């Protein structure tokens, strides 16, 4: 009897245990991307998933689950079985801004996930209509402060990167109070910026680099410590006089909470190698994306990033929302 019970217990344990890491993965892995196909996060996820799939010997299938600023997809992924077969591409919005923006958020970015590693960030650029009077960033800052709510600032909808980074920019200019003009996506917002219907916006380098090169819009600064090879003539915000404005839309790989340590370690290792894959690196460079190096890689660094980002965005967003209500 005892033997039978232990056999049953043994079998249950064997069945209940997640696939052990020596064999992991034995079937395709689903990577949930919480935004529509074709956007920057989706493009980065696909670039990174390609070498990861080859290293794992199993295909990583991209699944786009868009909605509610990315929180729909992340909520779904957070509830998946933590066996390493469902992972996700989290984002500055979903794992940094969302807790402040969505009071009823069903997950906690800092405690409900297994951080695997930061993948790539896309630096933010301050852009304006091409006939904007300001010649450089200093003049632009003065202009925004002077114009008050006559300065029209476009953004791509609630919780979009251009929304939150735009709010952050204005919060850093004393006396500034722009009028926010919402659009249903980056395309329509940029279109009206090119046409001169609105004055300025902030957006990820990948969305605006060709428009800047083609002279359709003008750029005042890139919010990173170093200039981008994609736009070598564009000064950083540090050089141009607004050093506190440092922001990139980071994209990072997470798993659901409670993943086995060996599975997590394997995914971290594979992500690390994928980021050094020459082909993936070349494509990320072409997008103007910045890949984390050294100590900024891996789960522990990502955990720290999430905690600091939640702390950073919370007051900015709450302040902006309070102003909006007035």
């Amino acid at each position, binding site marked *: 009897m005892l033997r039978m019970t232990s056999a049953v217990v043994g079998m249950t344990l064997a069945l209940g245990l997640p696939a052990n890491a020596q064999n992991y993965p034995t079937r395709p892995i689903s990577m949930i991307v919480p935004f529509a196909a074709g956007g920057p996060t989706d493009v980065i996820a696909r*670039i990174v998933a390609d070498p990861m799939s080859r290293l794992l010997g199993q295909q990583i299938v991209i699944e786009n689950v868009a909605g509610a600023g990315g929180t729909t997809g992340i909520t779904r992924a957070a509830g998946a079985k933590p066996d390493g077969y469902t992972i996700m591409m989290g984002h500055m919005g979903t794992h940094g801004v969302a807790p402040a923006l969505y009071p009823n958020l069903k997950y906690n970015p800092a405690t409900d996930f297994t951080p695997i590693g930061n993948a790539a960030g896309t630096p933010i650029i301050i852009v304006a209509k091409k006939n904007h009077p300001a010649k450089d960033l200093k003049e632009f800052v003065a202009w925004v402060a002077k114009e008050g709510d006559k300065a029209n600032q476009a953004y791509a909808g609630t919780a979009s990167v251009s929304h939150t980074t735009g709010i952050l920019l204005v919060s850093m200019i004393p006396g500034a109070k722009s009028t926010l003009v919402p659009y249903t996506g*980056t395309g329509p917002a940029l279109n009206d910026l090119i046409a001169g219907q609105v004055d300025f916006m902030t957006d990820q380098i990948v969305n605006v680099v060709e428009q800047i090169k083609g002279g359709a819009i003008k750029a005042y600064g890139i919010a990173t410590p170093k200039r981008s090879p994609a736009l070598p003539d564009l000064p950083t915000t540090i050089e141009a006089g607004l050093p506190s404005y440092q922001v990139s839309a980071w994209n990072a790989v997470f798993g659901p909470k409670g993943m086995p340590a060996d599975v997590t370690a394997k995914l971290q290792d594979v992500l690390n190698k994928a980021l050094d894959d020459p082909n993936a690196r070349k494509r990320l460079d072409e997008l103007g994306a910045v890949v984390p190096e050294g100590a900024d890689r891996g789960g522990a660094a990502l955990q720290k990033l999430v905690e600091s980002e939640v702390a950073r965005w919370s007051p900015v967003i709450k302040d902006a929302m309070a102003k909006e209500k007035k």
Partner: protein
Amino acid sequence: MDTLAHLANGFSLALTPINLLWCLVGVTVGTAIGVLPGLGPALTIALLLPLTYKVDATSAFILFAGIYYGAMYGGSTTSILLNTPGESASIVTSLEGNRMARNGRAGAALSTAAIGSFVAGTIGTIGLTFVAEPIVRFALKFGPAEYFSLMVLSFVTVSAVLGNSALRGLTALVVGIFLGMIGIDLQTGQPRFAFGVTELLDGINVLIVAVGLFAVGETLYLAAHGKSGPPEVLEVKDSIWMSAADWGRSWKAWIRGSLVGFPIGAMPAGGAEVPTFLSYWMEKRFSKHQHEFGTVGAIEGVAGPEAANNASAAGVLVPMLALGLPTSATAAIMLSAFQSYGINPGPQLLDTQPALVWSLIASLYIGNVMLLVLNLPLVGLWVKILKVPEPLLYAGILVFATIGTYGISRSVVDLLLLYAMGIMGYLMRRFDFPTAPVIIGMILGPLAEQEFRRAMTISQGDLTIFLTRPLSLTLLIIAFLGVAGPWIWSRLRKPAAV
């Protein structure tokens, strides 16, 4: 001249056997996904993105272009046969198309949709070839004020679908506007009428409402009021092809639809549905066969909107190729496919990658011809679906609608909505409320609201912005004439007649 030389070069690149094969695969897959509700070209191209690692750029874009155009062709098929639109731009097609099908004229409806798609696709592609630059400059003149006025003009369309009672029609319109309001308000970020349901935050998909009201509502109505006795079979009268009279009524509608669809498609906020509304309204207004609209089905009402839909699909490519801006989900994915070849599309795309762009445009011409050749013989096959006995046919429609709805976002909330809309559709039919105004209100309401508030925001609350901008004023005047014109006209003529 230069353009023609580029285009010839594009054809020489696209007309290789292997590229023709990719084009054929693309249009076939495109037609298939167009027929299936819930699976659109955006999702399909996204699934095929890994191909870009293995196939050269020209072939990949020829494949994608085939899928894109093919889906536009296929979308009308289920609208006409099953009253189940496969994509939002073919909702209007179902209004007259399904009436025709139920009066034994499915073949003519499918044919005019297919040939109209070909004519419009070709006109749109010619527009893309020769007038992309001026069209882009024109589209950039459209700011929020102009878009609002365009939406006001589109609202005039409602007058074409009000039905017997203006009060009931307008009630349906308001219900539609209400449904359109559900979700997060773009301006303030506050949820409206979402009742704490996360799935409602991004609003209700108009396709679910259309399929619920039209297909499910219809099925429930038949089930509740159906005759007993042996099951009936819808018969296919006449020839399955178009008669000389059909051709005579269709060709002008194709041209008119194309001319409306292409420029509006090129506008980033124009949307794919607005030109189909405008075209439907125009056709009804100018038709000599008023009595056929909404009864036995008027062929112009299929030909015009279907042409507008396909021409606007070509229009969408204008800002994509001329500015590098994605203005639709499919365009966004095609742009990201460009990026996987190391090409960042932008205002200089035509200068830096002429061979690729022109072979893409050439493949659009080729794809159009292939689609016509592929789709016309299919008409004969499709009409056989109607030979299925009615109870089985409608049961099949329910299954089809349910699977398609689940496919859109794999959400149970969507399924509940589909059947709630179905019950509403049943009640509306039972009490003689028209359902089409619901769809118009749902699409135009939020667009008009957003553009109005955006215009107000930019102008710091100055209402005269709609009247001081010439384009906006012109559109408002046309809208006014659209509503009041017939009345004024009859007033002016009366004294002369008496």
